[in-house]
């Protein structure tokens, strides 16, 4: 009888506790750390971090299927007489100074000199943001280090669940994990090689689909085409992924991951040292940059140096002033064309001519100035009370469960 009452009490208690999972809760401050760059909050380049979209908004928005949807513009019509696309501005969009957003014709009328698809994709790029009208507002910042965002109570899409978000920037993943262990952060980035070690009680490990391309970027124009191609052919991606990345991530010769583009397998990844030796001129040299703050990239650079030297190219590693750099390129959109244009913008290379995604990507990669090697997922360590966290950095739907 006594046990029956205990069982009943547990049953009732579990009902009350578990029933709370049904609805997101409003309130609380989320503490996030990121290795992302210092330019959040800098209006001249709001595209610089994944959180900028929470503050600055565009006319149209790419949804989770890669389709362009109305955002600050609610509709668009073609005015054949004027030769323009006319965007309709959303009403009730409140700016930080309390006034309503009333954009002029320079924003809402776009000449129809391009296909509509191209106009929409361009309008959705974060560096084309037209208003500081997002779900969050900047309340405090130390450029390059810290930013505090507060909920926009009047957000047209509904007030976000969180009251505020505190973001520490430019933190190495090692430092982020230390802060997480010390209870100073609720969400931190982790390395793909740390996934197994992170799986412990009170840590939720969230691994996205591949969203980050690891690529070798040739900054120095004096490195000739044949040397760049020889370098690309020298790298043993499969071996590196197996041994150094603990079989995490995906080997790739493409900028966009297969799940987004569907054609990544068309870009070759095979190593061909014999051909690389044929291409590399005698006495060729190459300096590779390594970032002392990025443990995984640093180890990959060391291995690339070994692989490339086997093709007869003398390689040295350095901290700065190098011929090539191994970088992480976040894929900021699941729309292939938008993602490629964003990458071109961030890499400061000429945007590819508008066309089918495969042709655009082939144009970006044709001269081997960009040599993709791997696709990494985003890996996050979260406290268990953090709900709805997404790799896209959409903070407005994140909420904190009551402890």
């Amino acid at each position: 009888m006594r046990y029956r009452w205990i069982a009943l009490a547990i049953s009732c208690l579990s009902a009350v506790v578990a029933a709370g999972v049904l609805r997101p809760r409003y309130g609380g401050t989320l503490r996030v750390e990121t290795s992302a760059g210092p330019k959040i909050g800098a209006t001249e380049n709001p595209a610089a971090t994944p959180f900028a979209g929470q503050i600055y908004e565009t006319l149209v928005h790419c949804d989770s299927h890669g389709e362009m949807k109305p955002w600050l513009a609610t509709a668009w019509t073609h005015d054949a007489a004027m030769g323009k696309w006319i965007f309709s501005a959303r009403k009730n969009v409140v700016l930080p100074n309390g006034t309503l957003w009333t954009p002029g014709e320079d924003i809402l009328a776009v000449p129809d000199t391009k296909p509509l698809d191209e106009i929409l994709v361009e309008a959705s790029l974060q560096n084309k943001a037209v208003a500081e009208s997002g779900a969050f507002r900047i309340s405090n910042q130390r450029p390059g280090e810290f930013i505090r965002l507060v909920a926009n109570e009047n957000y047209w899409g509904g007030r976000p669940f969180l009251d505020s978000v505190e973001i520490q920037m430019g933190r190495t993943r090692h430092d982020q994990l230390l802060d997480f262990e010390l209870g100073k952060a609720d969400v931190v980035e982790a390395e793909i090689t740390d996934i197994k070690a992170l799986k412990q009680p009170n840590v939720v490990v969230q691994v996205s689909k591949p969203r980050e391309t690891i690529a070798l970027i040739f900054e120095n124009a004096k490195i000739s085409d044949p040397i760049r191609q020889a370098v690309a052919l020298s790298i043993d991606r499969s071996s590196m992924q197996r041994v150094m990345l603990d079989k995490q991530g995906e080997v790739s010769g493409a900028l966009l991951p297969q799940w987004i583009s569907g054609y990544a397998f068309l870009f070759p990844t095979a190593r061909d040292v014999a051909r690389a030796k044929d291409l590399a001129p005698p006495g060729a040299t190459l300096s590779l940059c390594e970032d002392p703050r990025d443990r995984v990239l640093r180890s990959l650079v060391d291995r690339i140096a070994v692989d490339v030297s086997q093709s007869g190219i003398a390689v040295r590693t350095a901290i700065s002033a190098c011929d090539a750099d191994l970088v992480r390129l976040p894929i900021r959109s699941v729309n292939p064309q938008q993602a490629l244009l964003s990458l071109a913008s961030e890499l400061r290379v000429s945007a590819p001519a508008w066309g089918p995604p495969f042709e655009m990507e082939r144009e970006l990669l044709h001269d081997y100035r960009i040599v993709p090697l791997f696709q990494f997922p985003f890996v996050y360590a979260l406290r268990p009370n953090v709900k709805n966290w997404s790799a896209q950095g959409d903070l407005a739907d994140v909420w904190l469960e009551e402890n």
Partner: protein
Amino acid sequence: METAPRSTFMRVVSCLVLLLSGWAQADQIEDGAHALAAKIAAHLAPQERAHLVVRNISGLPAADAIRARSKLEAALPRRSRAKSVVDVSVTFSENIAGYLWVAEIHKGEVEMVAVSTNTVSAAPHRQLLAKRLLWEQSEPLLDVVQQVDRTVVLGNGTVTIVHADKRSDVVLDIPRVRDPRGRLEVDGNTLTAYFPGATCRGTEEPLHLDCGGSSAEFLLNGDKVRFTPGRNTIAGLRPGEETASVCEGMKLVALKEDLVTLLDKNGSTRDQIELSGQITALWPAGDGALAVMRNPETEQYAAYAISVDCASH
């Protein structure tokens, strides 16, 4: 609010949807095969024929992949007297938007066609608590009232009325709320839609509602309640207290995000029924409840009538 038995109309519509979806999928495979064959053929000289090497790296079912291959082969020009053979590697791939069929023509050309993905939902399994699909849509779904001859659907700022032969929609001017909530009451020709921070009243025929900027009271399990303006909560109720009272003292609750549970007077679980997604609303409806869920994979919202056999409990 009362839920009527499934009408003949709904049955016919369901059957038609199933038949059409199968037909549409078959058509898409055939269309895709023809489109890709045409693109491949454009790269072949008159005396050349294609030799296909096909692989499937997508979620396309094996049977469909075989069918697609045979349709593709049949659609390519048959040149039995061709002097040369061109190897063509065909990959049934997929991307964020759907299937992507890629042909690498071993003359240095690549062609692609996009083929839309057709998702087939799993058949519902029967449990003690019965569920019946009332409505499905891709936009947020807040509440559904099914009458004998019509279904009234409340979306996030929309009301839709579906009769056997016509459909009417009206857009409501209400404040946006993240995780939107809404409750619909139908009384004869009168419609009332309750939202956080707004209440809309009007008529079904003609379909018209006027909205005011406050949360009015509505009945929930016999108690008067109202939505909290600008929030996803009901004033004075904790999330766990949003239940549907059934069978004199029992209640239906969402204990887990995809599970409707029948609790008896003592709070013990008497029965459970699983939905294929996250429950976003659970409202009392007649002798049971109306459960709205969102399938995270298909991103479709669906409303189910949950009925309880009170006599058996």
